[in-house]
């Protein structure tokens, strides 16, 4: 095996970021390419790691940092973490390729008139900040220690703040601050919960949390951490930041924002559901109800939007709740389905969001009432938007279909009236996703193009560097849809073992 493979996966993007930062003027416009190479390398490493997980047992790596309190840099590679890390890393890679042209354009728009040196500096800055996303996602995925997990979650919040403030749209600094405050709100609660756990078991190790099972304080720890993570995953009423932040982020990281939100589902499973199964049981039904309300509310909210960037933003509120619905149902299948849906959703959102971004990038128009018939001039973009819609709506052959099947099977597996009712309403809620995905496709891409748009020669499909990564994600999602066992066989041992121990 490659030496320190896990260490490389997590920290190489950070080293590359440092490298780009130090040599920013020398690297210049090649910064994107350097970042892409780095991420391609870590993706390769993740594939190696994945194959070794397929063949063997989970790997745990331990670097003690502090003895009292016991804080160690501990990472765990199992089927669950490696799958999440791999998909997140691939999305980062795809979006990094997408960013090469996009950021150039964005810097031109925002920092018009600055000196070439400053322009280069802004361009490069995007990439060295961007590279902390894969660091954060890999860290969160592999963390086996609560403080390490918290640390990487916080990295994401901070990086997001800077990227939003530098490259966002309209009131970007205000929105960045809003995002940071919500991130902090969430973080404080998560930290409080972590400290409660530490006070009871005397360690931050995630695989020791189960010792707290049955402890009355477990209820409070779960409640507080859940509250914090609800704010991250945008469960009603903690969703209010999502439409603002998502719609104003630079498009190339907007999809990563969906990952940032939805990865909370993974964290909940990792640190609460699996170790504290019985204590978590109480929270199941309320989570299901809240998730269902959020699913429907988010979809209806999406339907009411006229700003093309707010459409995927509001859709994220709804889609993240699917994972929560699965988690709330608390069966092995529903949790696997919920997590698989998380991966499917972030792929779908990458395509959907980035395509919406392409429309803004090309037409400079955000109000969909002024957009019509774009498929005439942008057929590839239209096709990608439709694929994004299909991926969101859980249509075969995309991975969200098997994910939804498993998720809802897990809900029906509970076999009580409450769960069956929730399951059927949940299935019907998918109709809203189908409705808005294709309603907006019709509004934006179909019909006769108005003269005002038809005359504009610059309205055409964007360069391949923006569409190819998205096509790759569509193909990846179709592959996982046709061969879901690739992911599910990774999830299965982890979830089943944990559930069997309960």
């Amino acid at each position, binding site marked *: 095996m490659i030496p320190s493979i896990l260490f490389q996966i997590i920290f190489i993007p950070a080293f590359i970021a440092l490298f780009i930062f130090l040599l920013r003027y020398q690297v210049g416009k090649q910064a994107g390419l350097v970042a892409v190479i780095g991420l391609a390398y870590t993706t390769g490493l993740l594939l190696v790691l994945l194959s070794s997980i397929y063949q063997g047992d989970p790997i745990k790596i331990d670097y003690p940092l502090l003895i009292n309190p016991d804080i160690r840099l501990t990472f765990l590679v199992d089927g669950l973490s490696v799958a999440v890390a791999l998909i997140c890393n691939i999305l980062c890679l795809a979006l990094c390729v997408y960013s090469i042209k996009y950021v150039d354009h964005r810097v031109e728009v925002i920092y018009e008139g600055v000196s070439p040196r400053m322009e280069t500096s802004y361009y490069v800055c995007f990439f060295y900040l961007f590279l902390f996303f894969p660091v954060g996602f890999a860290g969160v995925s592999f963390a086996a220690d609560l403080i390490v997990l918290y640390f990487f979650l916080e990295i994401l919040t901070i990086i997001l703040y800077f990227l939003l403030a530098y490259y966002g749209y309209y009131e970007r600094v205000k929105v960045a601050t809003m995002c940071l405050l919500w991130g902090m709100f969430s973080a404080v609660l998560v930290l409080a919960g972590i400290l409660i756990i530490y006070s009871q078991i005397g360690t931050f190790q995630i695989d020791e949390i189960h010792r707290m099972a049955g402890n009355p304080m477990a209820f409070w720890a779960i409640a507080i951490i859940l509250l914090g993570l609800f704010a991250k995953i945008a469960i009603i009423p903690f969703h209010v930041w999502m439409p603002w932040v998502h719609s104003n982020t630079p498009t190339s990281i907007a999809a990563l924002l969906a990952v940032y939100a939805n990865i909370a589902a993974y964290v909940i499973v990792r640190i609460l559901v699996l170790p504290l199964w019985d204590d978590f049981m109480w929270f199941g039904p309320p989570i299901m109800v809240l998730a269902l309300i959020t699913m429907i509310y988010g979809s*209806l909210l999406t339907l*009411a939007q006229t700003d093309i960037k707010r459409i995927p933003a509001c859709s994220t509120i709804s889609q993240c709740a699917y994972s929560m619905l699965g988690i709330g149902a608390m069966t092995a299948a529903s949790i696997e389905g919920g997590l698989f849906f998380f991966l499917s959703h972030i792929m779908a959102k990458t395509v959907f969001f980035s395509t919406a971004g392409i429309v803004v990038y090309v037409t400079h128009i955000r109000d969909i009432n002024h957009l019509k018939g774009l498929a005439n001039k942008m057929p590839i973009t239209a096709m990608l938007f439709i694929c994004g819609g299909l991926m969101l709506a859980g249509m075969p052959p995309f991975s969200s279909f098997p994910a939804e099947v498993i998720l809802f099977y897990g809900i029906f597996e509970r076999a009580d009236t409450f769960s069956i009712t929730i399951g059927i309403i949940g299935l019907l809620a998918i109709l809203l996703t189908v409705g808005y995905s294709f309603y907006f496709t019709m509004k934006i891409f179909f019909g006769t193009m108005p003269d005002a748009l038809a005359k504009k020669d610059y309205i055409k499909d964007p360069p391949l560097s923006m569409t190819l990564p998205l096509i790759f994600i569509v193909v990846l999602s179709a592959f996982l849809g046709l061969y879901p066992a690739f992911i599910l066989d990774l999830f299965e041992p982890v979830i089943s073992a944990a559930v069997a121990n309960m």
Partner: protein
Amino acid sequence: MEIQLAWLCLILPFLGVMLTPVFARINPVLRDYGAVFFSFLTAVSALMLLPALFTAEKLPLESMVVWMSSPMQLSFGVLLDPLSIIVANVVAVISFFIMVYCLGYMKGNPSIMRFWMLMNAFIGSMLLLVLANNLIIVFIGWKLVGICSYGLISFYFRDERKYWIGGPEPFKFDKPTECGLKALVTTSVGDMLMLGGLLIMYYYSGTLNVLELYETAPQWIPAMAATPGMIILVSILLIAGPVGKSAQFPLHEWLPEAMSGPGPVSALIHAATMVKSGVFFIARLIPIFYYAYWTGGVEEAMYFFIIVAWIGAITAFLAASQGLVALELKKVLAYSTVSQIGFMMLALGVSGFGQDILVKGYSAGIFHLMSHAMFKACLFLCAGTVIHAAHSIYIHDMGSMRKYLPYTWVFMGLAALSLIGVPPLPGFWSKEAVLVATLESHNYALFAVAVVTVIFTAFYTMRFVGMVFHGSSSKHMRKETSKPGHHVSEGYFPQTFACGALAVGIVIFGILGLKAEYALNSLFEIQLVKGLALSTVEHIYSYPKSMVVAFSIGSVLIGVIPAYMFYVTQKWNPAVPYERSRFVRTMHTFFWQRWYIDRFYLWLFADGIKRFASSVIAARFEKGFDVGINYRLPRAVVKGGNNLLSFIRADARDMSTNIAYILALTIVILFLALIRMLT
């Protein structure tokens, strides 16, 4: 060998999809003929499955690979039994003729590559649905045909005026893309509920493999029946899918608008294939519910049959009534399709009403499926040629076209006679089989509805044939034909050939009608009674068969004669009863407005949900959350902080007050600490 052929049936169309862009780069002719060639190969593969029916005792055959082993055990494979072989042949063969027709119909269309890809994808998905061995794979095929049909209905995505349907002025028009969306969303309602039904069934049975479901029914049906109401719930959920896909009441409203796609698409989706998938799926489920009721003694299982039969009967009647007044040629055919599928559902529904009627009802449903696929595909293809020639979608813009389209007149006429139920065409035999099954089930209300529907069918069919081909030319036609070098004539050769081939098929199938019915009866006897060991008893006819024939022909005459007088000979004037009778006018409006169901759905679901989303969810709830949490809360925090600061500042003039506060606070804390220590 058969199994390999079945796999080929699945692979070939998708291969066609993938190769079409490659062919398009080489040569446009290769692209077009290449696409049709793959559908030809598919049809040949399907036809080569037919010999297996002669040795039906060896069926079913199955081949599969594991698709998912955890947390659900699902396989992906093909299943060959009489039902799947028959329906696969209907799909593959008729699709091939439709593809041939497209060679002419779509000639010169700039988006033809997309068209071929969608058509082949559609055929492949449909065959996946039919041949799948597992209900979840059936569902995948089910969803894929839905997506392809969305793409094909919205094919003219630029929404040019000439592709709008609906109207005529002052009535509303529908654009192709709106129609596609409507079809997708409406059918999805059923799909989602059906998925729920499948998953609940999986929970009890532990499998969705069709054969395993049949085999293990004695174990899982009692478990499911132990929960009161569960069988009824699952029945409703499972029926919802076919109701959506086969455009049955109450989810039938998408199909009339689905006519906005190209003519052959209407034939493919609305005659031969997609709308039949619901009937096919119900046929797949019948052994399970039949077993549950007649062997397992589960009373609730009868609801499955009652619901299916009544939905079929209501839909047949409702859609036929709308066909009486429709003015768009393809819409008349669409209503007719909805109505005829109702007949199929009715036959399948009554098959569970008695132990003696299972095979009769089951084979009547499938027989009608086969004959209808043939004559309706022919009707739609001919309609495509007619509309193309007349440059209008309305039948009142046509008239006397027989002289311009003599071949089409013959072919469409034959298909129409079959739809009416004129002997010895296949429509007569299959409709009669449905009527016999219904009457023999002793449900006279259902039989009465069916007979009235036969009258309506005869009337509207003769009406459109008369208005299109006979009578005097309309003003529009006179204008069209007066243009120098007008195009009011037959279409390209492939179009006429395809229609002709189907018409010949109709005649042959009609001549062999009785034999076909007998063959189907014995095939399903082998599949259901011998193969699946469903308990049946021999049927003893309660009524003479001649009575049903008399009912059938009598009803046809009651419908045909007035229509013939009104629209063919034009000796009677339809305007007279309309103007004289208020009842006729009211009913006309009621039928024209589609019983106001479409309007109600539009108001409640399409507009209602959008209005609710923007005026309640976005404008009230979200704004409330936004203002409350994003503005008022931070402002309150800031204000509170400021107030505190100013409060402290104000009292800073008097230091002693502050000290007093601090002291008081310290005392309270100490006091609390003391209590804590003492307790």
